[in-house]
């Protein structure tokens, strides 16, 4: 029986180790190694930190890096602010059938490809788009208005794209809050605001944290939305990675960018977990 269990264990461990080893661990080590070398001449490479030096001294690279980080944080904040009242409505105000229908309505758009969602926003916002025509029809504008290709359009797209990943954890945690606890808050003389601050938000914290982590990650790693909706000035860090790899074939610098993105996202996720005293297992699993 012992040796039986041992064989079973090895058989079950093998796929996991192959998957994580060959597709996650080794590729990332390779990426690190490539980012740490410098091309001297054809086929001759030297180990150096030149790529990182370049990435950290070139103003465009550095600016894009921080801009992407700040905009992603902003997108996460806006998503949370928009989603929270709706999540609360679904979890606590709506009852029975309506609750189920509203929740499913929230889910459905996100089974649709991100490309389609972005395309929708392009049709709405472009110069010949619906919003522009609507404004002209209402007399608020006397010529076509271009609303695409700027930061605001990009933000709208980012928030839209990540909404689901905020909504689901929020609704789930808020649903587990007992109504009587809220009633008790009111009975003890709390007003709407203090009940929200002292009872509802602390209870929803786990959902807020996991929602924020996922939305932040998705915004940071997004490529489609900044490319299609953002303007010339809203270069995203993922676009720079793509450009170095596919357009310029400068893999060394591209790998360094990739690593910087990975470090940035890890640091922020780790920081958020640290701040709220939670572990990755609780938040993701």
């Amino acid at each position, binding site marked *: 029986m012992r040796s039986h269990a041992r064989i079973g*264990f090895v*058989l079950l461990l093998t*796929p996991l180790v192959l998957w994580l080893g060959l597709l*996650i661990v080794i*590729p990332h080590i390779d990426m690190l190694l490539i980012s740490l070398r410098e091309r001297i001449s054809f086929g001759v490479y030297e180990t150096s930190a030149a790529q990182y030096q370049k990435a950290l001294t070139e103003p465009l690279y550095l600016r894009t890096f921080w801009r992407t980080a700040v905009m992603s944080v902003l997108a996460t904040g806006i998503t949370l602010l928009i989603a929270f009242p709706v999540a609360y409505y679904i979890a606590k105000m709506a009852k029975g059938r309506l609750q189920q229908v509203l929740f499913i309505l929230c889910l459905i758009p996100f089974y649709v490809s*991100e490309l389609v969602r972005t*395309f929708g926003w392009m049709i709405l916002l472009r110069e010949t788009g619906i919003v522009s025509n609507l404004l002209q029809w209402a007399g608020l504008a006397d010529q076509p208005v271009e609303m695409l290709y700027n930061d605001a359009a990009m933000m709208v797209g980012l928030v839209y794209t990540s909404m689901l990943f905020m909504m689901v954890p929020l609704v789930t945690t808020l649903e587990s809050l007992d*109504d009587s606890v809220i009633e008790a808050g009111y009975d003890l003389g709390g007003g709407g605001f203090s009940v929200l601050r002292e009872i509802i938000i602390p209870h929803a914290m786990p959902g807020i944290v996991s929602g924020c982590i996922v939305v932040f990650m998705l915004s*940071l790693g997004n490529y489609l939305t900044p490319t299609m909706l953002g303007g010339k000035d809203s270069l995203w860090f993922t676009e720079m990675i793509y450009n170095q790899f596919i357009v310029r074939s400068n893999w060394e610098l591209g790998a360094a960018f990739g690593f910087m993105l990975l470090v940035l*996202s890890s640091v922020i996720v780790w920081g958020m977990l640290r701040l709220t005293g939670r572990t990755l297992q609780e938040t993701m699993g």
Partner: protein
Amino acid sequence: MIPTIPQSRSFRIVYGGYVLLFFLYLALPLTVVAVFAFNDSQFPSLPWEGFTWNWFFGDSDPQIGVFHERGILRAVGTSAIVAGCVAMLSVAVGTTNAFLFNRYEFRGKGALYVLMLLPLVIPGIVLGISILIASSTLANGVWDVAQLDIQALRPGLLLVVLGQFSFITTIATLVITARLQKFDRTLEDAALNLGATRLTAVRTITIPFLMPAMIGAVVVAFLMSFENFNTTLMLVGSDAPLTIAMFDRLKEGSTPLLNAVSLLLMLGSSLLALLVILFQRR
């Protein structure tokens, strides 16, 4: 702020209005995509030129519909093959992972579990380039040693499958583990008492119990693969899956053909999604 606590009328109206506005915001982009699939014009924008089915069934030049457009049809086929492979692979590995984490205690289990979650926290683009680098390094190494050029290791469908598999497996694992945790181990013991071997017990008792989660995971994996963009973008070769093909066209300017494809995609995926939701409610 719950129904049992009286709120002023104006507050309720404002709150309800906000929620309504939110759902309009959710529906708006998808609705316009769907509506303009029927616009009898070369552009998916106003003015409205009248209703037509041509972007679905049209077969003559300026309006070639989805069902007569070779490029799109081939891309759909490519996506379906990729998604099928990814779904099968990731659910198979997800199932073995679930058994491993559920049934065995071993040193380093916690660390391995965290490592298993990591693919979800790595940006898709970074996953893509790391696999691209690793496979090219391997291919170059083989070339240096044996002068053999392994095409499979160059950007193409195999890499796309591997790239998507690398993070979708985590999701499959989580879905199946959640169900396996609810399983009553004594049922398996009963089968063993009745003379079944361990494997028979798992095959006839545990796997049927896991079936809903496994089917759910297959559908979710299929959809995620079908819609994946970031990882695929970095690993794609000459055969473009649907999202990449649509992206290339969208960059060049769009016709309502793209709306028609999108509408079909929406119908397909929401149908699958609804099935899963209903299936898991049951």
